[in-house]
C-alpha cells in the first residue's frame, strides 16, 4: 500500500506530461492519469514493485490510444466544430514551460540558447505523430529498451526502431532549423 503510493507519487507528474504531450489537453491528461492509477491499483497491486513501472506505462499508453480513438469519433460526429489540436492549450503549455532557473556558472548566452533549443525540441516532440512521440518519449525519457518499448506499445521491435528513427530525424531537422537562425 505504502510502496504503491510512493511509486505513484514518483511517476504521476511524468505520466501527466506524457499524456499532455499526446492529448494537448490538461483536463483530459489528468483524467487519463487518474484512470491509469486506478487501473493499476485495482488490477495489479499484487504484482512486484519492479513490474509496476512497465505496467503503468502500458496502461497509460492504452488510455492515450483510447482517448485518440474517442476523439477521432467525436471529430467525425461533430465535424463542424474545431479540431482538437487547434482548440488545445498549447499556448498555455508553452507559457508554463518557460524556464525560470538559470545557472549563472555557465555562460548565460549558451544557457539561454540551450534552453531555447530544449523548448523548441519539446514543441517538436508535441507535434510528432502519436506513435513516434510515444516511442521517442518511452525510449529517451522513460529509458525503456527497444524490447520494453515494443511490449508497452504492443508493436514489434522493428517498428519501434522505425518510429524512433523517424522521430529522431524530425527532431534533428528542428534542431538544425533553430541553429541556422
Amino acid at each position: 500500500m505504502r510502496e504503491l503510493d510512493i511509486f505513484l507519487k514518483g511517476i504521476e507528474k511524468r505520466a501527466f506530461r506524457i499524456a499532455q504531450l499526446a492529448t494537448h489537453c490538461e483536463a483530459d491528461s489528468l483524467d487519463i492519469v487518474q484512470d491509469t492509477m486506478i487501473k493499476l491499483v485495482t488490477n495489479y497491486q499484487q504484482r512486484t514493485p519492479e513490474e509496476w513501472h512497465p505496467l503503468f506505462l502500458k496502461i497509460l499508453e492504452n488510455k492515450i490510444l483510447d482517448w485518440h480513438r474517442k476523439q477521432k469519433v467525436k471529430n467525425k460526429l461533430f465535424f463542424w466544430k474545431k479540431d482538437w489540436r487547434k482548440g488545445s492549450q498549447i499556448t498555455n503549455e508553452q507559457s508554463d514551460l518557460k524556464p525560470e532557473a538559470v545557472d549563472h556558472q555557465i555562460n548565460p548566452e549558451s544557457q539561454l540558447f540551450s534552453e531555447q533549443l530544449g523548448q523548441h525540441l519539446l514543441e517538436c516532440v508535441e507535434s510528432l505523430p502519436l506513435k513516434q512521440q510515444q516511442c521517442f518519449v518511452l525510449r529517451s525519457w522513460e529509458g525503456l529498451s527497444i524490447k520494453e518499448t515494443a511490449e508497452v506499445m504492443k508493436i514489434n521491435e522493428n517498428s519501434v526502431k522505425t518510429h524512433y528513427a523517424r522521430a529522431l530525424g524530425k527532431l534533428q531537422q528542428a534542431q538544425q532549423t533553430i541553429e541556422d537562425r
Partner: protein
Amino acid sequence: MIHKKQGHQQSIPERSASALDKSIEDLSPEICDRLEAARKIAIDSQSETKQKNKVYTWFNSLSPTALKPLSAGLAFSFCLVVFWAMLPPSTSQKTLNMTSSPDLSAFILFNTLDETERDIIEDIEFAYWLAQELGTEDHFDTQPSDTNRNG
C-alpha cells in the same frame, strides 16, 4: 558561435529528456494538487476493491457446495417444464379418438393378438369371405335357371 557548439554537446534525446524534466519542475501547483487528489482516489479505490473481493470470495465459497447443485437442479427442472410444455396437448384424449375409428381399432386389436389368435381370425375372415362368394355365385347361377323355368 560558442553557444552553438555547446548546443551540440548534448544529443537530441538527452536534450529532450532534460527539457521534459524541466517542464515537470515547472508544473503549476494546481496541477500538482489535482494529481495528488487523483492518486488518493486511486489508493482509496484499492480498499473498495478489497471489500468487493471479500463479497466475491464469499459467493465463490458458497458456489461449489450449495449454489452449483441448486442452479443445476433449477436448470434441469426448467428444461423439464419446457419439454412438458412442448409436448402435444392431451395425448390420452387423442388415443381415445384414434380408437374410435373402426380401422384403427381393428389395427390395434390385431396388433395385440397372438399368432394363433390371428390365424383363427384370418380363418374366420376367410370362411366369411368364402360364404359370401358362394352366396353370390349361387345368386348368379340361380337367376338364368329361374328365367329358363319361367320361359
